[in-house]
């Protein structure tokens, strides 16, 4: 009987989905511009009340209370795509230096698979100088001289591990909880569960820098099986933040309003005929897009920021940079955006060329990241935003203590291969106990030996801070409830305030 109910519910859902797609295409076939805007247009709170539908039917992004007390209301997730080397940034391994250029011990290689390392590689000692900082005595290298001053603001996870060693799957695992395509991203889950406070801005904004988007493509901010309105909205860091948001020449805002009103009248008739709540969501999306025209250019414009702030972040308006994105992240969170995801590409230091070298390219990359990320923490702190904003920093995996020997040959630059057994991430802000270093790796930084933390544990902890129990936060799909953490995930209690 229960199965029958489930099948019926799913059948109804499928039927509805088909209908929606057809209507969507019919509506949009003549409006390519509208189609491009589609992912950007979210609902709003002004639904017609006589229809007796829940707030969520009318506006899928309307806010919901967190089931448990939330420590943070917003997240800024800084993903260093390509995977930065923990051995040059945070995981100080003096022992490794002693083995520099010596063949890697067999015990490390047995049963292990690497992306590029073949045969017996040589060990590669740390290329940075480390020192301890703050009252917490956290080890931070001279690759990040500004960040060294913030040692007491963040909590380090030194023994994070993942089971993926290629960028795409590892990024998917880090952002969606599964290495395969099709799951909703962390940001989608959070926006689905909490909605967003500012109804004139998207709830989940994605900003990229470094010249490329992540290897896994847009699926890392996709909504998977959640309704597509919860996917991340990628805003461009250069030029118009959102395409087609400006009114076309000769079209006044009033005229635009008339157009939208006319479309909505037709849509309302459509709703009366079919009763499909997705039509209502669509009506609201038009209205929201109309309001976004004002708010988005305003919040995405950093030229009005005072000079002191530009100096702090090292921003140059108009450029596509991590610095600009960090400043934007602060502005968006200040404006009540729920989830801001930053991807910075270019951390894949294999040693195949100058830019990909551990001793030079990585140093340059760190210089571009060090100031903006430190500035972001300081700026959030001085405005009191750090009280309820969670900041997460990390890559999709770490890097080997061995020097990469692609195709068995010695590289012309110093580089490290992908490595998922142990790497460093940090968190700061809402609900995080600052100044903690949790987890320890072996003398080579090859494996975690104490307080290991899995990707699912990180997800469980983030959801906890946002006011969810990761085991109860589910979405029914294909006849079973799905979780971000699937069947895994333990809270990392030691880093919680």
């Amino acid at each position, binding site marked *: 009987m*229960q199965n029958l109910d489930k099948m019926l519910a799913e059948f109804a859902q499928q039927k509805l989905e088909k209908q929606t797609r057809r209507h969507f295409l019919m509506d949009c076939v003549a409006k390519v511009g509208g189609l491009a805007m589609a992912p950007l247009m979210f609902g709003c*709170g002004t639904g017609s009340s006589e229809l007796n539908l829940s*707030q969520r039917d009318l506006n899928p992004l309307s*806010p*919901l*209370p*967190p*089931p*448990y*007390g*939330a420590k943070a209301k917003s997240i800024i997730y800084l993903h260093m795509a390509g995977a930065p080397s923990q051995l040059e940034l945070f995981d100080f391994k003096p022992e490794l230096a002693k083995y520099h250029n010596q063949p890697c011990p067999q015990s490390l290689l047995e049963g292990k698979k690497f992306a590029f390392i073949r045969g017996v590689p040589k060990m590669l000692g740390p290329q940075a100088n480390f020192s301890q900082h703050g009252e917490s005595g956290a080890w931070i290298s*001279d690759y990040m*001289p*500004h960040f060294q*001053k913030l040692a007491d603001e963040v909590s380090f996870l030194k023994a994070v591990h993942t089971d993926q060693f290629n960028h795409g799957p590892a990024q998917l695992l880090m952002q969606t909880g599964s290495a395969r395509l099709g799951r909703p991203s962390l940001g989608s889950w959070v926006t689905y569960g909490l909605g967003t*406070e*500012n*109804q*004139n801005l998207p709830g989940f904004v994605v900003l990229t820098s470094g010249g490329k988007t992540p290897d896994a493509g847009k699926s890392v901010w996709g909504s998977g099986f959640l309704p597509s309105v919860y996917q991340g909205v990628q805003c461009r860091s250069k030029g118009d933040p959102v395409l087609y948001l400006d009114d076309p020449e000769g079209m006044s805002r009033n005229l635009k309003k008339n157009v939208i009103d006319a479309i909505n009248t037709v849509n309302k008739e459509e709703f009366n005929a079919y009763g499909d709540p997705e039509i209502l969501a669509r009506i609201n999306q038009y209205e929201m897009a109309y309001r976004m025209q004002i708010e988005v250019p305003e919040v995405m414009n950093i030229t009005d920021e005072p000079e*002191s702030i530009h*100096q*702090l972040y090292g921003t140059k308006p108009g450029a596509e940079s991590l610095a600009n994105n960090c400043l934007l992240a602060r502005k968006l969170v200040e*404006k*009540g955006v729920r989830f801001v995801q930053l991807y910075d590409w270019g951390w894949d230091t294999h040693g195949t060329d100058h830019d990909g070298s551990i*001793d*030079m*390219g990585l*140093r*340059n990359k760190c*210089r571009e990241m060090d*100031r903006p990320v*430190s*500035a972001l923490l*300081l*700026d959030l*702190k*001085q*405005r*009191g935003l750090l*009280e309820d904003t969670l900041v997460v920093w990390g890559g999709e995996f770490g890097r080997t203590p061995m020097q990469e020997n692609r195709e068995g040959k010695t590289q012309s630059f110093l580089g490290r291969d992908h490595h998922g057994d142990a790497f460093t991430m940090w968190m700061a802000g809402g609900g995080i106990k600052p100044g903690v270093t949790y987890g320890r790796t072996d003398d080579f930084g090859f494996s975690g030996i104490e307080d290991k933390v899995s990707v699912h544990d990180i997800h469980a902890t983030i959801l906890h801070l946002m*006011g969810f129990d990761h*085991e109860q936060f589910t979405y029914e799909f294909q006849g079973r409830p799905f979780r971000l953490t699937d069947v895994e995930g333990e809270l990392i209690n030691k880093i919680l305030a």
Partner: protein
Amino acid sequence: MIDFILPLFGRFHPILVHLPIGFLVFGVILIFWSAEKYAIYSPIIKLAFLLGGISAGLASISGFMQFQYEGYGWDTVQLHLILGIFTTFLSFGLWYHLQKSAVSPPRLKIKGALLLAILTLTGHLGGNITHGENYFTEVLPPALQAFLGGEASSNEPLELPADNWEEVEFFTGAIQPILDQNCKSCHNPKKLKGELDLSSFKGIHKGGENGAILENGNARESSLFARLILPEDHDDHMPPKDKRQPRKEEIELIKAWIESGSAEHATLGETSIQLSLVEPFFKKDEKPFYPVVAVPTLAEDSISILRGSGFFAEVVKTDSPFLKISCINFPAFSDSDWSLLASAKEQIVYLDLTGTKITDAILEQVSSLPNLTVLKLNQTFIEGKNLDKLNQSNNLKLLYLNETKVNSGQLKALDKHPRLEKVFAFDTPAADSGTSSQFSFHLETGNLSLPPLPTDTIVY
């Protein structure tokens, strides 16, 4: 074939019981009311007692069926059942008595009053069985409850002392409290659902109608544990779907106890249990962020009205009465709009007026919110003239004044505030004057910077 008839009839008991109550109360009222005109009313009185007797009989029989088929213990229903049957006979007795004499029998009022008293007692005992013995007392104020001798609620969640948890007895100190909180309301010696008593070690070892619930050392085979981890939709899942569910950590502890051999008196230390299993129960000194006061929950439609006015309005967490209000979508909010918030005075704990048109005058009203904990006044026309009003907001912990005109002299007024923890005054005159850390709260004036380093310009 007709096995279901009797239990079905039993289920009618809660409905049938109301008939004798109606008839008999009516009859007794007539006895008192008819005093002089007894002759006129006697047929009605007689009829009331006849119908009362018949319906009381039916109620007694259906009640007995329910007792037979629904797993109530004899101790629980004993007095209720006996008094119910007694009520039946008494009703018939009175009817027979009235039937025989044409005039008002002597002491009829006393007999009627006696019947009413017994009826009331029977009904009350029945109510206790279905609604619980503390049905009336639990709504009373705690002080009055204690005065009436109500037992201290055993529904406290399990807590273990962090320093000497090893000495706590595993069963009496940890398992029984979990069972008391999650299972006892149905599985106690009185209610005995499924003939199972989980309120004592003896009861647990005895098992229930399906036999033993403990398999020595094997948690998966012990239904005391196995039923807890069944999917909630499963018919055999315990506790029932709509009841409070034990926490994951509590279930783990029950599992560990069974696997340790389910002894009665062994201590946690003796069973060499992992610290991680008991750690979640250690008493935390964590103070809740928002005030601990009972506040009525604002009705959903009142919250909708707030949203309709333009506020972001949401409870701070599911089932909490406390409200978070923000003007993020309401930049036109000004001092004169304050009355829109009047319905939620007690509930507002978080108020974000950032970017609105408010002035100093609003602080008078803001200070009337008794539970306000976080107040954001960034980017407003606040000049800090009557900041001292906020001393009345006893619960205020975080105050945001970024990009306003407050100066440090005005902040002095809040120096004696009992709970204020942090004040943010970035980009204000207070920040420019360079005063800091002279207050009882932490004053964050910002202007943080990252001085340039030589390495900033070295490109490798």
